[in-house]
């Protein structure tokens, strides 16, 4: 049983503004794709919801540090523009349709990301076992099916001790039997302090994953709705 002050402290941690977007704007010439005056997303796992072309991937690529933007993106007090390396140490991103160099092996990419994120060998072994993809990691990525490439991309996003993991359309191209494995890993990482933003066109099965809230992307802006 928690003491009242402990409860308060837990509540405080839960409500900490993990991600803050301020005056965020993404435009191509005069065409505005996304304009978010102010958005605060607390710790947790959230569903980024929106129609085709609403700007979900653009938003995720901005938060992931891949695409340039105007405004500010701050994660746990670290500004993406002012402190790009420290920010990127906290965030990882798995693309909806990942593209990797076809001539490298899965192991090459894993070791490359491992080095940049300073991950331990043991954690890599655990992840590879978890994903069950060791059998094809020695082959070049160009020989992979889209499902294998997707699994590799998801695995790469779990490497290191990142505080925010962005998964763009994690359900596509994966076999149904793999989804419980993915969601149990998400729960495990959530329990150890990571937050998640997952975009998906289809709703999640409640027995597999219940998000803490939604980020609705529509009308060129984004809005946070807690559950």
């Amino acid at each position: 049983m928690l003491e009242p002050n402990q409860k308060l402290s837990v509540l405080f941690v839960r409500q900490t503004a993990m991600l803050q977007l301020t005056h965020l704007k993404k435009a191509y010439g005069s065409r505005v794709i996304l304009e978010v005056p102010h958005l605060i997303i607390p710790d947790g796992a959230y569903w980024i919801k929106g129609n085709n072309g609403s700007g979900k991937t653009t938003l995720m690529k901005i938060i992931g540090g891949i695409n340039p933007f105007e405004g500010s993106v701050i994660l746990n007090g670290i500004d993406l523009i002012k402190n790009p390396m420290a920010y990127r140490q906290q965030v990882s991103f798995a693309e909806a349709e990942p593209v990797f160099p076809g001539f490298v092996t899965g192991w090459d990419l894993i070791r490359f990301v491992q080095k940049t994120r300073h991950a331990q060998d043991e954690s890599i072994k655990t992840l590879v076992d978890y994903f069950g993809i060791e059998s094809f990691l020695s082959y070049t990525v160009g020989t992979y099916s889209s499902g294998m490439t997707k699994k590799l991309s998801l695995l790469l996003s779990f490497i290191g001790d990142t505080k925010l993991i962005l998964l763009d359309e994690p359900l596509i191209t994966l076999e149904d039997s793999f989804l419980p494995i993915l969601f149990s890993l998400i729960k495990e990482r959530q329990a150890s302090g990571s937050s998640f933003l997952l975009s998906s066109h289809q709703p999640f099965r409640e027995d597999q994953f219940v998000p803490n809230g939604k980020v609705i992307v529509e009308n060129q802006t984004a809005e946070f709705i807690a559950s």
Partner: protein
Amino acid sequence: MKGILHMMIKVLVMPFYKNHAGLLFFVFFLMFGIVESTQIVFYHQSLIYGMLSSGIFLVVVFVIWLLYQLKSLHFLLKNLGDDAYSFLSHVTLLPAAQSFLYFLLISFITFLPVFFYTLAIYAIGIQQAFYEVLALVFVFQLALWLMNAWMLNHSIRQRHIASRVAVPTLALPYQQTQTGIYAGYLFKEEKSALLLSKIFSLVLIYIVKETLEPGDDFRIVGITWLFALLSHTYLVQKLKTFEDHSLSWTRNLPIPVTKTFFSYLVLYSILMVPELLLLTGSIGRGLSLLQFTLLPIFSSTFLMAIHAYLLKPNRDPDQFLTYLFWLFLGCFMLVLSKLIWVTGVAMLLISFLLFRKRFFQYEPVE
């Protein structure tokens, strides 16, 4: 039907010329830039006369044309095999003879720079009554166009059948590093472009090296080195496209921009190692040890200056050739002014600052 041909020209021929602008620019300078303007007509008359009258010279020219045609074939085949160009499979709905004719036209248009020069060969050949040699030139060029057209037509119509020819690839041990991945791309995915760049550049360096004598001005080597670098600009463009297409996800990783910059710098230094090795015999013969060490700095920073330009946000792709021209001209003048080391250091500083400023402002073009 004309729509299909128009589309083929737009997606095959135009990218070919955009991607090979550096190489064509290099050859153009080699042909017309190194000779005094008053001597240029006489120079080309002599060159063409030599080609028409010497069997060995003619064979060398044929080999160069063949290499050019193989280079364009490689580029076109690669585009045809790219998923992004899968819509071109609609060409197979046309009768085989018609699609062959379309590819023949594509093959001819990509050969135009050579063909224009061939017109001068025909003019001089007719004047000098070299009719048999001209017939040979015509037959050879026709064979080159037919070869490419047949290969392209066959490739698109037989794409569902697995290839029986396996091109050997190099196993590189360091593909878990940035430089290793970039080098892997050049050695594995751009083998023919790399080979062609090397042939042009090594032949050029070899010719100059053989003519060097003790006491010769270093500017001879410096200018030659600059021309040799031009044949590598295509590789920089290809690397940038590769980075945009297959490595955009790495922008999410905590890799310092400085590290990325130096990874490319190392690669571009390694790229010119064969040319450097070729020049080692010239140390003390028109080239001092200090001058020799300046060359890799000059080459890596020149190629980095191009790479940094390609990171310019909202860049107009058609401006690339203009940039390349001014960069080349600026370096040319500075080398002539015996300021090669100043040029190297200035390009290093400017390209580093631009690279660092632009890297995260740039949005990869997918």
